[in-house]
């Protein structure tokens, strides 16, 4: 079951109403029980309890107000010291309201001080005091008169009855004659011996206390007296030691007229009250000052509290709004302002909270959109990276251009193919990366794309004496509206393809040439042999004249035959070589240890006694390759032979080094054969692997062609390069590496 909470404003009103009612009840109780006199002293327990209760309330109220005010001021002071925002205005507002509250009260207190001072001085003015004094004297003189009359009566009695011979009738007569109200004779212990008194005299006029008083103050030669304040009337009691036997005391009593006694009592009371007040004048003054001061202080506290309350009504909502605006400025819309404000502040805070809510909603939408955008961007980046990776794996060079022919995208192959190391995206232009004559050729190509979308053409780039054959494909890029946005150019390096095609063509030529040449060679050889045999037979049978001409002919024939034989042999060798080239077997790939092959080959060159030193530098760890061992052996033999021949052309001591190593990047296994010969002439490097191209006088130019063919069949690469120190190096790169089985072999030389 949920409890409904009252709004705070109603709670405050309720509290204030209850406090006012309690205060009114309290005032009523005070008025009823204590009266409205200025100086109140407790006369019975209830008054004392009320006074204590009021006093405690006073103390509690003052302490509470002091605590609240001090706490607020200390808090404000420290807030100002810490330079917390809004504390400046808060302090000023608080001080201003406090000053507005304190100033009138201070004026009120000052005026009250003056009024009280003047009033108190007026109360104790000299005429009033003199009147009272004279009235008091008047009463005293009247009493003295009665006392003196009573004394005189006693003296007369003592004169009339000096030795105590008075009898009752004489005493009565004397009392009637003198007008005294009573005549008594007491013994030493205060007990009554005889008495003569008027009927109106109260019976209890002489109590035990009075007799003791008389007894203790009685004198023999002096009449003593005192005034008995009886409820009915004051009485003058005179007493003296009565001569005669025993210690007797004569007492004479005279009543003071009731009205006179009453007036005298009133005068005396007024006189005493006046002087009591006069004695306490400073205290009374102080008390009034304290009343005024305390009232002022309470009022001041109340006004200050009220001013703080008012300032709080303003400051708290404004501070809450300020805090809220700061949080909004910092981007925090999560917490609405929670503040019990009233009136317009309530509306303002409500509007602010609504604004924060809307901002929060908008922020959520923006954050969601931003998150999605980031996600899309990340996906795009991933896709770009993927495309870039794919592009980098493509052997063809790919370059994307914008409308101004500035490179926007390219892959690594472009830098390699166009020999450009520094290409900067969105800065480098197409003309900066291609030769000038090719740039215009490419421009024409790009122009054609506007009509055919995609155009391909073979373009030959020359770098020095080297030629690179590219199939350049240009594609026009368009947006959804068909507007041109750029181009993509693909440089496909077909140099190797052309070389392969050339090699295949040569192979076919060789096969046909061998076939066409080989067939007539035997008849030629046989014919020449028959001519030689026929001529020898004719000579042996002496069917030829022994003339110089025949001798010359014989010599010519012999030379011709020898020449024909030699050339035929040469032709035969040539044909055999071409046949071998044309009939290279299809390799059978098996796991092969390259180091073992190299060792076998190099071992064959050891101990020949030649001046060329063949050294090995084999990798300690070399995985097996998938290769046809016999064909690879021929490759190594061919390369080593070429190297030895290259170094033997020089007069210096030759050195051939065969090296193997493994590169994990790929992975790939490399074989290098290098020499310290003269190196490869630059103009020959392009045709190095073409058939019938040799730098050697005796060579057919098919060795490296075989090598290239075998390595192509193994999906291996070969490249040749000159060394800076002299000589050249052929590097073979095997890419079909058997992974997972690694055999570590000791390196050997």
């Amino acid at each position, binding site marked *: 079951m949920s409890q409904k909470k009252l709004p705070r404003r109603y709670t405050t009103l309720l509290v204030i109403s209850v406090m006012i009612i309690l205060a009114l009840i309290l005032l009523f109780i*005070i008025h009823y029980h*204590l009266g409205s006199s*200025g*100086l*109140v*002293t*407790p006369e019975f327990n209830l008054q*004392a309890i009320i*006074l*204590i209760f*009021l*006093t405690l*309330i*006073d*103390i509690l109220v003052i302490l509470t107000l002091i605590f609240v005010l001090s706490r607020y001021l200390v808090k404000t002071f420290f807030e100002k010291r810490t330079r917390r925002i809004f504390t400046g205005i808060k302090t000023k507002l608080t001080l201003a309201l406090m000053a507005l509250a304190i100033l009138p009260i201070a004026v009120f207190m000052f005026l009250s001080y003056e009024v009280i001072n003047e009033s108190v001085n007026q109360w104790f003015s000299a005429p009033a005091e003199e009147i009272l004094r004279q009235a*008091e004297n008047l*009463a*005293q003189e009247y*009493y*003295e008169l009665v*006392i003196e009359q009573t004394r005189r009566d006693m003296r007369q009695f003592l004169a009339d009855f000096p030795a105590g011979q008075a009898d009752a009738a004489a005493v009565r007569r004397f009392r009637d004659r003198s007008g005294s109200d009573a005549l008594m004779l007491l013994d030493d212990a205060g007990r009554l011996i005889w008495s003569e008194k008027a009927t109106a005299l109260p019976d209890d006029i002489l109590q035990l*206390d009075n007799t*003791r*008083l008389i007894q*203790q*103050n009685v004198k023999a030669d002096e009449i*003593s*007296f*005192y*005034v008995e*304040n009886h409820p009915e009337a*004051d009485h*003058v009691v005179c007493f003296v030691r009565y001569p005669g036997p025993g210690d007797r005391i004569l007492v004479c009593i005279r009543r003071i007229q009731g009205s006179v006694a009453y007036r*005298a009592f009133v005068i*005396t*009371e007024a*006189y*005493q*009250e006046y*002087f*009591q007040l*006069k*004695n*306490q004048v400073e*205290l009374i003054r*102080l*008390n*009034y000052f*304290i*009343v005024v*001061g*305390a*009232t002022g202080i309470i009022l001041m506290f109340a006004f200050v509290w009220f001013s703080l309350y008012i300032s709080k009504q303003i400051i708290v909502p404004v501070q809450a709004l300020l805090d809220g605006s700061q949080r909004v400025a910092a981007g925090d819309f999560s917490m609405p302002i929670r503040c019990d404000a009233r009136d317009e502040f309530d509306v303002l805070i409500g509007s602010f909270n609504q604004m924060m809510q809307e901002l929060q909603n908008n922020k959520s939408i923006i954050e969601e959109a931003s998150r999605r955008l980031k996600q899309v961007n990340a996906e795009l980046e991933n896709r770009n990276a993927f495309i870039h990776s794919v592009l980098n794996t493509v052997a063809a060079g790919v370059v994307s251009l914008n409308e101004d022919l500035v490179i926007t995208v390219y892959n690594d192959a472009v830098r390699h193919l166009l020999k450009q190391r520094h290409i900067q995206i969105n800065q480098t232009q197409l003309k900066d990366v291609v030769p000038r004559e090719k740039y215009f050729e490419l421009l024409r190509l790009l122009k054609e794309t506007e009509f055919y979308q995609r155009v391909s053409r073979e373009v030959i780039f020359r770098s020095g004496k080297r030629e690179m054959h590219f199939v350049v494909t240009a594609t026009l890029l368009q947006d959804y509206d068909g507007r041109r946005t750029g181009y993509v150019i693909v440089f496909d390096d077909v140099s190797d393809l052309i070389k392969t095609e050339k090699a295949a063509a040569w192979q076919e030529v060789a096969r046909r040439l061998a076939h066409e040449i080989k067939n007539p060679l035997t008849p030629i050889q046989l014919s020449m042999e028959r001519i030689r045999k026929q001529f020898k037979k004719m000579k042996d049978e002496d069917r030829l004249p022994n003339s110089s001409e025949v001798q010359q002919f014989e010599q010519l024939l012999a030379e011709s035959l020898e020449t024909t034989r030699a050339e035929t042999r040469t032709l035969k060798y040539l044909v055999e070589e071409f046949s071998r080239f044309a009939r290279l077997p299809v390799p059978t790939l098996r796991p092969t240890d390259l180091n073992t092959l190299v060792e076998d080959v190099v071992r064959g060159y050891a101990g020949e006694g030649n001046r060329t030193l063949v050294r090995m530098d084999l990798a300690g760890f070399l995985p097996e390759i998938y290769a046809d061992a016999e064909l690879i052996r021929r490759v190594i033999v061919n390369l080593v032979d070429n190297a030895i021949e290259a170094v033997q052309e020089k007069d210096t001591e030759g050195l051939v080094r065969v090296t193997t190593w493994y590169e994990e990047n790929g992975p790939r296994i490399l074989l290098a054969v290098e020499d310290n010969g003269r190196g490869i002439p630059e103009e020959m490097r392009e045709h190095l692997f073409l058939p019938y191209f040799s730098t050697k006088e005796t060579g057919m130019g098919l060795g490296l062609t075989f090598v290239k063919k075998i390595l192509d069949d193994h999906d291996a690469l070969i490249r040749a390069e000159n060394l800076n120190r002299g000589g050249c190096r052929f590097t073979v790169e095997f890419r079909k590496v058997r992974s997972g089985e690694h055999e570590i072999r000791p390196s050997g030389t």
Partner: protein
Amino acid sequence: MIALLMIVLNLGNLFGLLGSESGQVGEIAVECRPDAIVVVCAVGDLDEGRLRQLLESGEIVEFTYQIEHQVQRRMWFDVNLGEYQIQKILSYNPLARQYLARRLAVDEATEERIFPDFHEAFYWLTSLQVRLPRLPDPEPAGREYLRVRVVQQKSRFLLLIPREMSTPWQKVAVKCP
């Protein structure tokens, strides 16, 4: 309300004669008699004018002489041999121009006096002669002593907490054979 508080707080002070600034018990004379110790002392430095003013304005002035007969012992709670109180009450009748005095004490008859002269009344109020009983087993010589002070009246702070206006304690050695 604050005024009430202040009046309540100052009720005692309105009629205060004794305190740290005025009213001291003077030299105390001790006379050893076979059956009693007679103590004679007086309150000095009392403001005569203020006393007269109080009396004439109707106040009743009451002095209580407190006498403690003690002995020097190690334990503080074991030092008392006897405690005595004598009350002296003085009032003024303005119509008769007399001062009425009364002396009250335990085991002593009430004494009532009439003084037509203020000085006599003042002397009576501020001086004391009292007979104290001698102890059956006297303490070693020089260890007994008397403490005397005069309490004017007892008031209550906030009407609850007792407080008194009195002279300081005056001490005198009892050297009875």
